[in-house]
């Protein structure tokens, strides 16, 4: 086994940290036991051993060499040979002080990964450099490893041919997807869709002014936001075929991206349903939205099973619009609050649950009263929470249809409502259809 020969330097490393308190043969034996018998990753095993004998794991100097593809989240110490694909500088605020950091993407022939260097010192590496990194560590972000360079990390420049040239993504045939199946993190995608809307914007990318053409496109399965980083001459209504695009989560919603490297084609306009048909909102099951991770302009149908605190009559700070707690704004102190209405509801359709946020207009429509009337009612009752109680009586267990944009984060799906309507369904008609189907 390859590990046998490789393990010796790590035994040395542990022995050094422990100050020769423990016999090297003993370390060697235990380390092997951890690795072979308990199958613990080398870096963790080293830390456990050092801790066991009362040493400080942070003094370990020798990381474990890995390729980018082998990286997993929360690795304490890892070595890499890689190429810097992008390098950006920025200042962040740490404990009230400005601090320069460097961030970007690096990769080797196996994969690429985002990195952040927290101790910049006299950073002298540029895009395209091949570097040997020792003692970096990884954290998890959205389930993916993210590489960090800290105080103990050592970076050295290697010659450019220490690493073979590699393409950023392995080249294979792009895979065809429908819009509804797009998820953040996908790449090399082939998509046929109609442009519903497009606009040109100028954005600042790494200090460079760049034009981006963004908008919404759709196929019969749903809609998706897109960003084209090249002027393809897109215009509203075009049916386009893009081969080699990717999907990124942007503000919790999957977004399709592509640039000049893709294969681009404008297709016959009759290859897709017409614009107005595609512009219709698509009904999603909440389970689908959870699996997919959000979508724009969706309709969901379900039952409200909980009204969360912070619903009903609320007062906002006139300065910053933050919701007041007992008449006090977190920033501006005691202020004369402006009355507002909103609902934070848990909507459940039997396949999943989401949090829907309904603003003033929709709340007024559902409750059949405006803010002023609600304020009067609360005044009479001398209790602001009566409105929330009314909402509970009205809405809990009530079938409702809500449309809006669904975004996804650590707390699940959040639907910012554009409209909401109580639902009535012809129960008998559907029951009859279903029964007929069964009896065929």
């Amino acid at each position, binding site marked *: 086994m390859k590990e046998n020969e490789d393990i010796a330097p790590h035994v040395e490393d542990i022995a050094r940290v422990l100050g020769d308190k423990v016999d090297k043969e003993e370390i060697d034996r235990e380390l092997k036991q951890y690795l072979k018998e308990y199958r613990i990753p080398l870096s963790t095993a080293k830390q456990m051993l050092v801790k066991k004998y009362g040493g400080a794991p942070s003094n370990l100097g020798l990381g474990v060499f890995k390729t980018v593809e082998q990286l997993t989240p929360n690795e304490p110490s890892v070595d890499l040979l890689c190429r810097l694909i992008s390098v950006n500088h920025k200042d962040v605020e740490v404990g009230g002080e400005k601090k320069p950091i460097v961030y970007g993407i690096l990769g080797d022939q196996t994969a690429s990964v985002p990195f952040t260097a927290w101790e910049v010192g006299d950073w002298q590496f540029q895009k395209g450099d091949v570097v040997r990194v020792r003692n970096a560590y990884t954290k998890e972000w959205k389930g993916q490893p993210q590489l960090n360079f800290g105080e103990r990390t050592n970076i050295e420049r290697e010659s450019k041919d220490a690493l073979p040239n590699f393409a950023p993504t392995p080249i294979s045939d792009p895979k065809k997807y429908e819009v509804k199946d797009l998820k953040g993190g996908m790449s090399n995608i082939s998509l046929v869709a109609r442009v519903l809307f497009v606009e040109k914007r100028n954005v600042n990318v790494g200090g460079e002014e760049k034009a981006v053409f963004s908008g919404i496109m759709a196929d019969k399965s749903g809609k998706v936001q897109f960003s084209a980083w090249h002027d393809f001459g897109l215009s509203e209504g075009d049916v386009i075929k893009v081969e080699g695009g990717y999907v990124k989560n942007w503000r919790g919603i999957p977004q399709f991206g592509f640039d000049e490297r893709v294969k681009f084609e404008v297709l016959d306009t009759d290859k897709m349903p017409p614009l107005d048909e595609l512009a219709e909102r698509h009904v999603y*099951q*909440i*389970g*689908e939205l*959870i*699996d997919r991770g959000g979508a724009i302009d969706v309709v969901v149908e379900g*039952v409200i*099973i*909980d009204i969360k605190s912070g619903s009903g009559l609320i007062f906002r700070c006139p300065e910053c619009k933050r919701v007041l707690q007992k008449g006090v704004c977190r920033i501006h102190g005691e202020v004369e609050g402006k009355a507002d209405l909103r609902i934070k509801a*848990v909507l*459940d359709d*039997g*396949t*999943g*649950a*989401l*949090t829907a946020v309904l603003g003033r207009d929709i709340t007024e429509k559902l409750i059949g009263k405006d803010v002023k009337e609600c304020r009067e009612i609360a005044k009479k009752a001398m209790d602001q929470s009566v409105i929330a109680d009314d909402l509970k009586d009205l809405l*809990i*267990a*009530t*079938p409702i249809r809500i449309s809006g944009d669904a975004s996804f984060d*650590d*707390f*699940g799906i959040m639907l910012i409502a554009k409209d909401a309507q109580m639902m009535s*369904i012809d*129960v*008998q008609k*559907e*029951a*009859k259809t*279903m*029964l007929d189907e*069964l009896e065929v």
Partner: protein
Amino acid sequence: MIAREVAWRIFAGEYNSSIHVESGVGERAPSYVVTPLGAKVNRLFVVGVVTDVENIGTDTEPMWRARLADPTGVFFLSAGQYQPEAAQILSKLKPPKFVAVIGKSRTYSPEEGVIYVSIRPETIKEVNSELRDFWVLNSCRSLKKRLEIVSEAMKMEKPSIENIISLGADRNLAEGIMSAIEHYDYIDIARFSSMLQDGLKHLLPEHQEIDGGEGVEAEERQNKESEDNIENEEKFLEIIEELDKDVKGAAWEEIMEMAQKKGLSRIQIEETTNSLLDKGLIYEPVLGRIKKI
């Protein structure tokens, strides 16, 4: 991710036939009742008729028990001091009432291999028959989907979560179905298909009438059911109505007495009672008393 558990719409008949529980590992990990058709239930949304409520605790520490009937069976609810809102509502409820319940699945296992499932309500609300019908339809949809996918999955040589997703399940359902296939020796598809039919027929007036419908099936049923029986049932309902003066229901002994006077035999009385109970037209609020719904 701390996703909120989905509230399953599921019939009592399916929920109560669950014998597999998936217990969460670690702190605060949820546990699930896995039904034979792969619904992995931690939370439920059910609507039905509450037929009886009783306090099995004490006055100072009440524990309210209630039975909630749907077209396929009965859910058992219990709420105590840790569900103050639900307990409060149950304590004031005068059955029979249409009620919607959002609650958590509970299990009780008196011995190895035997489990009893119930619901611990989080929210209880009195509703109307339209919402009940809407719920029945939703539960039928959900049951139909699981029936279809489970039947397909059972035909697979090597079912896996990914394979089940390709049949049209979302990940949560696929995990449940996989678990059901692994833990249930026998999944009675025919029984759940007829449960689905019962649920749908419940929604259609032409299938609901006591004295039979117009369909071929209804005719067959009617032939089996002698005219006498229907007459008996009607007589019986009249008797109950007459005797049920103090709201608690008619006493069994009195019903017997009066029914025998009207020419019904003991066996006929028992058959009629069972048939009416099955049809959900009468219920037993307390042992020995019968009440019309």
